[in-house]
């Protein structure tokens, strides 16, 4: 989907024509709010549990949860709702999820299990979590007022 957008954008640039595409301006129908937390183990009364804390003193290997909350602020249906999240270069995806991924910098997307990486000798190998550069959630439609969140788990490289 993103690559289609990019192609469309390129065409727009070349032709300077008004393909139906616009930057949400005055009052976007949908609002995105990003958040990041770090997982910490807390020991209480002899049991260890995991809590989420603000990302302070984050060191390599720490597990992070990146959350994006979305809200359809309008009283109308939102369609073809797609959230794309480029992974920060310093983190590595920790687990697959209900999303598509890109392992080529956002050019192509697909389910993680189906992705492969081209090796220097031309052969393909199955993609690893560390290869993932982008994550994309496709939600098809948001009812009026609908809100929700998507998230992914990553660790500092």
């Amino acid at each position: 989907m993103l690559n289609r957008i990019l192609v469309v954008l390129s065409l727009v640039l070349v032709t300077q024509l008004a393909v139906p595409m616009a930057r949400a301006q005055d009052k976007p129908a949908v609002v995105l709010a990003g958040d990041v937390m770090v997982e910490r183990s807390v020991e209480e009364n002899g049991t260890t549990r995991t809590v989420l804390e603000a990302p302070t003193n984050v060191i390599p290997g720490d597990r992070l949860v990146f959350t994006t909350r979305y809200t359809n602020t309008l009283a109308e249906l939102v369609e073809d709702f797609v959230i794309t999240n480029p992974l920060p270069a310093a983190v590595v995806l920790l687990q697959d999820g209900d999303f598509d991924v890109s392992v080529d910098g956002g050019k192509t997307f697909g389910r993680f299990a189906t992705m492969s990486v081209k090796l220097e000798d031309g052969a393909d190998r199955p993609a690893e979590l560390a290869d993932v550069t982008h994550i994309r959630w496709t939600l098809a439609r948001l009812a009026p007022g609908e809100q929700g969140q998507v998230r992914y788990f990553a660790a500092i490289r």
Partner: protein
Amino acid sequence: MKYAAIRISALCGTTIASLALASQALAAGIPAGTLIENTASASYNTGGPTQVIDSNTVSFRVAELLDVAVASQDASALPITSTAVLTFSVTNTGNGPEPFVLTADPAVSGNDFDVTVDSLAIDSNNNGVYDPGVDALLANGGTSAIVAPDQALTVFVLVTAPGGTADGQSSQVRLLAEAGTGTGAPGTLFAGAGEGGVDAVAGSSGADDDGVGALISSLATVSLVKSAVIADPFGGTQPVPGAIVTFTLQATVTGSGSVDDLQITDTIPTSTSYAPGTLTLNSAGLTDAADTDSGTASASGIAVTLGSVAAGTTHSVTFQVEID
């Protein structure tokens, strides 16, 4: 349209940066102070043109992880006769540049003997071998130069053996490296003390580590046994004038290692005369003259120079005198 152009360049920038960074596999992890930013974007439509929105950008900086690993680089216990040089590696396994406080402790529990630490030295020319006068000396307990993440220092510990040790006794020397920023239980926080002002956090090592190097006392001991066999002119063994006395000096080197500058000397007994040309070493004849062979002999005495002799060997010197 301007938006679209900006969007494309921003995406390309992210792509290049992520690919470049992904190829740098850092054992110690992303460098301290690295800014991590995450922004999601979404596209959708509400019947009209497709809309694109961005989330807010969340960002934070990676803290400095203080970690270190120390390992002995000696394959086995080093033999020590009087002095020895132990070799250790000190690796910065954290993610920020860090100096380390280096302390060698020669009094390790279980030691048969404790050496004296004369000095530490840093392998300035990185050849893995201590080069006196080249490698920079560091006082025991001193602080190293800054070590980059994932880089290792080779540290030498120069020691002297005490007197009175017995061959084969063992000893260990422990080298401790502590992060210059501080040490503590894993997770200990040093607010603002990290690279570029980020917080520093003690890693799994507790920001310190130690390694032990082993020494084994290598002492060689020489024992010398002298014996005599008399052959009188009548076929007997009586010490009568004219009898030939064959002296044997047997030098046995025991222990381990070797002895240096071993020389066997003896005087010709009074009332006897050296029988010229009878000096031998290990059954091979030696000339009496001071020349290229190892022996000399004269009317006053004999001398055989053995030089460096390995432990576990025996050398025997013989010469004959005639009773006056």
